[in-house]
């Protein structure tokens, strides 16, 4: 098979690469290791709990055997289990002393089907962070480089949100925001007045205005997105980029095919294509192209580059720097506080809003006011009323219990901190020296730990969260200050970072390998720092930008 471009992976960035490259007129192969999932044919989407074999909560025995890691995800359940990998069939290893929960979705659409849909721009506080405190290597781009691409992506995928005029969380091209509920409205006012901090509704890739021309309806407020949404109301490959790419007539999609290696020609210093294994029958295949885009997810793209080592590049493809695999990151995150707000117990809401709120970063911006850390943190969460779930955890039986659970219960507000993760050489990916998977491919080994900076940020976040909600009239009942296991934010990134210098980075400012000009890596692997915002929007904007650059280079005969 011969193409102009091969896109490895079909998730959030793979879909964007396929769309942009096909719309530019290139013949594109999108190759996906998982099964095909057809938009609108989501098996569990419309089922009630009593129509599910295990009532939607799932078969705990099965999960203990085959989904030990994936089942740690709060959105993993009987409805969504088909959108996560089977851990037994998809092993990885961790270095001695490391723990890392690698949460994955191998299917057409990848994690675009299961993502949290939070959509935030990064700012120059983020792109300038490495330069300012000396951790990691400097980003070769700044906000102005990416702003038009953020515009393009937001307008296409559909993002609802409120403009707030914050330099640390730049406004985007928003559809009308979803509403803050009655308690959140109150807390927003209180913390703005008392602390000058901004709590705003989550900026989410759930649409509040339909796009009938794209066959996408507005959000129905079900909040069961990870099952798949036949309304097309949230951004996924299936709902958005895949139909656009297919409409060009330039796209070929191959599923159930895991790419094992990229082929490299040392005479031309170009990658020439990919070699893949059919996951159903084990047969092997190959495809060639003038361009290769890696969008296999941060760790899998790095894995593929490491496994594509060859005589000319024995440390891994495009790894003359030796930094491939290093400085991986994930957001340290914890439940900073829960506070009760009984004064609102005569109020309620209707509908399952599919987003929470966000408290924009306020530390270490123009004044360095972090205690023991030099970067930022932000809170996500929301106010909610308890329902029958509370009956599982409290004393009481009989009519009194049934009557209590009959009506919505106590209002509470939850704030979950997400902090910057410092890029460190000691957090890295390698090929396991001994273990292989069922296809004979070396397993990925993850070495990862959070450090003092992350601990300090979450400790300060806990104190801040309690202070804010207490001052807003809440009664704090608990809070935590230790990060969970690495990977639990599902924002794993880095490993093939962008940078100015080929000696200290893998990619240039166009997400293009310094060493191999026709190789682009536009998923989370390219990140040089983590910020404290959710990263998917930035991956998408960088992908669209890289596609534009690659097409120009191709047309100019530079690659």
């Amino acid at each position, binding site marked *: 098979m011969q193409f102009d471009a091969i896109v490895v992976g079909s998730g959030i960035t793979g879909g964007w690469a396929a769309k942009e490259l096909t719309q530019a007129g290139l013949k594109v192969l999108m190759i996906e290791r998982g099964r095909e999932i057809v938009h609108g044919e989501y098996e569990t989407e419309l089922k009630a*709990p*009593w129509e599910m074999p295990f*009532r939607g909560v799932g078969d*705990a025995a099965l999960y203990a055997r085959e989904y030990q890691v994936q089942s740690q995800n709060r959105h993993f359940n009987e409805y969504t289990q088909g959108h996560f990998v089977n851990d037994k069939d998809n092993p990885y290893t961790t270095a001695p002393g490391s723990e890392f929960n690698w949460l994955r979705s191998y299917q057409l659409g990848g994690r675009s089907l299961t993502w949290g849909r939070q959509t935030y721009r990064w700012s120059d506080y983020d792109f300038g962070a490495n330069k300012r405190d000396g951790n990691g290597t400097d980003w070769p781009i700044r906000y102005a480089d990416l702003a038009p691409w953020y515009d393009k992506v937001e307008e296409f995928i559909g993002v609802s949100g409120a403009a707030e005029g914050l330099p640390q969380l730049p406004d985007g091209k928003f559809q009308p925001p979803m509403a803050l509920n009655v308690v959140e409205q109150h807390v927003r006012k209180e913390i703005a007045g008392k602390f000058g901090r901004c709590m705003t509704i989550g900026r989410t890739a759930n649409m509040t205005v339909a796009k009938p021309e794209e066959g996408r309806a507005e959000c129905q407020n079900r909040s069961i997105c990870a099952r798949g949404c036949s309304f097309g109301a949230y951004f996924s490959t299936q709902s958005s980029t895949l139909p656009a790419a297919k409409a060009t007539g330039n796209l070929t999609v191959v599923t159930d095919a895991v790419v094992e290696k990229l082929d490299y020609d040392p005479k031309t210093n170009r990658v020439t294509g990919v070699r893949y294994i059919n996951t159903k029958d084990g047969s092997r295949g190959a495809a060639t192209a003038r361009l290769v885009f890696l969008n296999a997810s941060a760790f899998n793209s790095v894995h593929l580059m490491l496994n594509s080592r060859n005589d000319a590049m024995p440390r891994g493809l495009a790894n003359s720097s030796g930094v491939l695999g290093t400085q991986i990151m994930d957001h340290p995150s914890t439940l900073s506080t829960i506070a009760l707000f009984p004064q609102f*117990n005569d109020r309620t809401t209707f509908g*399952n809003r599919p987003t929470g709120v966000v408290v924009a970063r306020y530390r270490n911006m123009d004044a360095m006011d972090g205690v023991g850390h030099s970067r930022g943190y932000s809170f996500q969460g929301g106010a909610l009323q308890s*329902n029958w779930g509370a009956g599982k955890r409290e*004393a*009481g039986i009989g009519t009194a219990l049934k009557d209590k659970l009959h009506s919505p219960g106590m209002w*509470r507000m939850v704030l979950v901190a997400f902090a910057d993760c410092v890029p460190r050489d000691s957090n890295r990916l390698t090929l396991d020296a001994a273990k292989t998977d069922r296809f004979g491919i070396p397993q990925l080994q993850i070495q990862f730990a959070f450090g003092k900076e992350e601990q300090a940020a979450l400790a300060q976040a806990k104190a801040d969260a309690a202070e804010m909600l207490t001052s807003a009239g809440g009664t704090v009942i608990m809070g935590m200050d230790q990060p969970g296991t690495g990977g639990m934010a599902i924002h794993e990134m880095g490993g093939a970072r962008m940078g100015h210098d080929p000696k200290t980075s893998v990619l240039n400012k166009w997400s293009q390998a310094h060493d191999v000009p026709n190789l682009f890596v536009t998923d989370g692997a390219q990140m040089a720092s983590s910020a404290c915002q959710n990263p998917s929007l930035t991956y998408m904007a960088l992908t669209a930008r890289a596609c534009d650059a690659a097409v120009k280079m191709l047309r100019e005969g530079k690659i």
Partner: protein
Amino acid sequence: MVQPVWGEWWPMQDGQPTGWKRRDFMGAAALVALALGLPTAAVAFTELDEKDAPTSHQRTLMKEVSQLVIPRSATPGAGEVGAGDFAILVLAHGLENSRKPVKDTAAYARFLRNDGSVRHVAWLERELDLRAGGDFLGADATRRAALLGALDAEAFASRASESPWKAIKALIVTGYYTSEPGGSEELRYEPVPGRFDPDLPLKPGDRAISNDWTAVDFG
């Protein structure tokens, strides 16, 4: 009222349970899978230890205990909708950490599996009989409620308590509110709200929404 799915999973003969045979169970599961249009592969059951198969007495007990936890009012109680059977099955499968080893192995020695977890239903059966000074199910309704209420209060009195009752109760509650009567008659089931109203008055007796999953997780 729709027949509870869980009740249909149990092999019955002349209206009486015939005990738990894995072969029968798998067959029933496959039928349910077909009825629900699910791929049979989605119903992947673990090998159930013979000792986890409930006796007729245990099923009756769990039905009665479920009904005590959530009794009939204008809507059915938890025992009537099969929450007892649901709890028995998912306790054996490990929901609510029911297959995690207990710390106080001495206290639960006679109910321990090889993996160090407690056979919750067997424990409950004996515990209630001990408290009743005989057959719990033979006590009158008022006394049964009082005995179970005391057990419940003791279990939830401390966070540190690892009483097996906590998991049993949690799964009875789950079984009830994820059943059609519990989820859509006792509470409201709103699969497609279509809008979000951020601030509405709440009046006494207003029904909660059973499928507010964020509330279930965090509430």
